[in-house]
Each structure stands twice: as structure tokens, then as C-alpha cells.
């Protein structure tokens, strides 16, 4: 039962990653691609860690997985902001 739920969550997360990759390849410009990537990373990784957390025995492992997700969330958001800001500045000229 737990295996089925966990597998379902992981497959859902992989679906988000697939959507993000398709968005990276098919969307027209930098900003929309960044948007697709960060959405995919946030939710996709969240579902993945949820699926993995269901499998773990100790509370400490679940806490570490949650911390990993939060760290990637923040770092991904900051990186996307920096990339978009740099691209914006290059467009409008300094």
C-alpha cells in the first residue's frame, strides 16, 4: 500500500520534470523557460521527496529530505531571479 502511494508520488514528480524539460526545449524565450524550469523543480522535487519520505524508517531521514527540498527551492528561486535579472540588464543595456 505504502509502496503504491510512494510510486505514484514519484511518477507524478517525474511527470513535472518531464514537463519542465519539454518547456526548456520548446518555449520561445529565456524568461518562459526559466518559469517552466523552476515550477518543475519545485513541485517535482517536492513530490519526489514525499514519495521517498514514505519509504524511510526514521524521522531524521524525513527531516533531511524536507531540508533538501527547502534548500533546492530557495536556491532555485534565487538562481532563476539572478539569471532573469542579468538577462534583463543585458537587454535594456547598462
Amino acid at each position, binding site marked *: 500500500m505504502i509502496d503504491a502511494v510512494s510510486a505514484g508520488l514519484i511518477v507524478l514528480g517525474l511527470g513535472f520534470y518531464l514537463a519542465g524539460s519539454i518547456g526548456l526545449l520548446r518555449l520561445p524565450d529565456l524568461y518562459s523557460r526559466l518559469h517552466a524550469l523552476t515550477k518543475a523543480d519545485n513541485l517535482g522535487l517536492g513530490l519526489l521527496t514525499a514519495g521517498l519520505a514514505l519509504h524511510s524508517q526514521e524521522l531524521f531521514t524525513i527531516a533531511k529530505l524536507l531540508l533538501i527540498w527547502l534548500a533546492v527551492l530557495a536556491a532555485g528561486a534565487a538562481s532563476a531571479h*539572478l539569471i532573469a535579472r542579468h538577462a534583463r540588464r543585458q537587454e535594456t543595456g547598462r
Partner: protein
Amino acid sequence: MNTPSLLAFDGLLLISIVSLAWAALATRDARRSVILFMAFGLVLALAWGRLLAPDVALAEAAIGAGLSGALLLAAVGGQQGARSGSAQNAGHADPQPAVRWAVTLLCAGVAGILGWALLESFDSSARDTLAQAVAANLASSGVSNPVTAVLLNFRAYDTLLELAVLLTAVLGIFALGQARPGYRFAGPVFDSLARWLVPLLILTAGHLLWVGAHAPGGAFQAGATLAAAAVVLRLAGHSHIGLPAGSVLRLVMVAGVAVFLLVGVTLLALGRPFLGYPPAWAGTLILVIESAAMLSIAATLVLAFLGGRPQALWQATGAAESVPPAATATPAALPEDSSGAATHGVCKEEQSRC
């Protein structure tokens, strides 16, 4: 035995590795090549995890992909910032097709010889002798992680020389010029990221150091994580990145090699072989050496990232009289960085790397 799904995973992973290597090497643009190389390093870390090598996976992700990538990206940025024309590539013509074919054949031959040697080595019966020796002596080595035991007990001399290689490389870098100019202060987004990321990285480094005795981890991974924290601080615009100044910096740089040598020579003076730990003390000695090595590795990797002599830190006294203060800091975020106002002058205004 291989289930079909594991075989499919292996196949996909290996195709990704070869494709990323090919793409990183075939492109003309230096920045694209470096970013593809970083992706190659991360997929390689996945391969190490699959092949049951978690210590190597940690080290590859932290050092091979992370710090190497940061070094290469800083070099690419420096090249493109310094000059607008591609003067350095103008004099190099592409090799003739005949030369390209000859080199391709040569490399195919090298691959063939390596593959043949590899397959021959798989059949040899002497393959397991070292692994059995390690397993037999693991209990008296002071740690229970076999890779740490090999690195810091059975082959400690190699690790001592490796730390010396790292130190020598940084001394060579120092001899070649001064550090790259710093970056200006980051905006609020990156600054707030750095504010909690750096303490988290420092904690993780301490955890990796401690846990390396009985689980994947160790001094190298911990040192690389500390160096990553300093690199994040540097990118956020704080020139004073936690490195000590003057003679303390020199001490920290040589601490790894020095403590290692000290332990070895003391054991020699006590009548034991060089770096032959007594089994009762082995765990403690390994922890002491690893702690010094972690600080030393972190300092040398950060200095390698700086790219040269850190002028503001190299003198023992404050460098306020030789460096003009930064007159106009960005109004976005002026952090209350109270340490070392003299070092803020290293930042240049024109750099757009934040």
C-alpha cells in the same frame, strides 16, 4: 544479477555521460562548454552512487562538479571581461582534416588498448588481495568506513602527499599574480540566500567531517563544502570571506600537511613506523589529522578560486592605506558587514557578475 530495469538505467546513464562529454568538448563557446562539463560531473556523481561509491559521489559533486565548475566559470568570466575581441584565438587555425583523422585514429587506438587492458584485469585472480587485506585489518584501523581507513590509515602517506600537491598548486597560483577583483554587493535576493546557506554549509561540513569515520564522508568532502560556503560569500560581494589574515592564513594553509607530518614524525620518534598509528589511538589521531586537513583543504580551495595572492589578506597589517575605499556601493543592499572595512575596496563597480 541485473534486472532489466537496472540495465535500462545503466544504459541511459552511460548514454547521458558520453553525450554530455561529447557536447562539452565539441562546442566552440567556452561558457557553454564549462556548463556542460558541470552537468557531466553531476551525472558522473549519479554513476558513482549507482556503483556503490558514495564517498566518491560526494567528492565528485562537491569538488569535481561544484568547485571545478566555479573555477572554470570564473576564468571564463575573467577572459570575456578583460577584452572584447577574441585576440587569443585569432592566431589558431583549425587543424587539417588529415590531422583530425590521424588524431581520431590515435584516440580510437588508445581506447582500444585501455579496453583490452581493462578486460584482461577483470580475469586476473589477484584482484581481491588488497580488498581482503583492508577487510581483515579494518577493526584495528580506528574507523569503520573502509574508504576513510584506506585514505587516512593504510595509505596515509599518499594522502599526505596529496595535501602537499594541493598546497604546491596554491603556491604556484600565488606566484602568478594577484587575486581576481571582488564582486559588488549582491541584491536582496542573493544576499538573503547567502545568509542562511552559508551557516548551513558550515554545519554540513562539520557533520561530514564527524560522520566520515563510520559513514560516507570525510575531510575532503567537508573541506570542499566549507570552500563552497566561502565562494558563496565571495559571490555575494563580501570580500572578507572568513579567511584569516597574514600569518594566520599561512598557518591554516599548511596546517594539513604540518599536522600530518607532526603526527608521523612523533610516531617515528616513539619507535613506531612513520604514520603507523597504535590501534588504541588510531581513531583520535585520524580525527585530529582530518580536522586540520579540512581547514587546510578549505583554505587552499578558496585561495585557488580567488586566483592569486589576496592582496588585502596577505599583509599582516591592515591594507587600508594601499586600497582606495569603495566610494559608491550599490544602494540595494549594504549589509552590516562590520569585519574588515579595508577589504571592501577590492570590489570594482563595473563588474556585473552579481
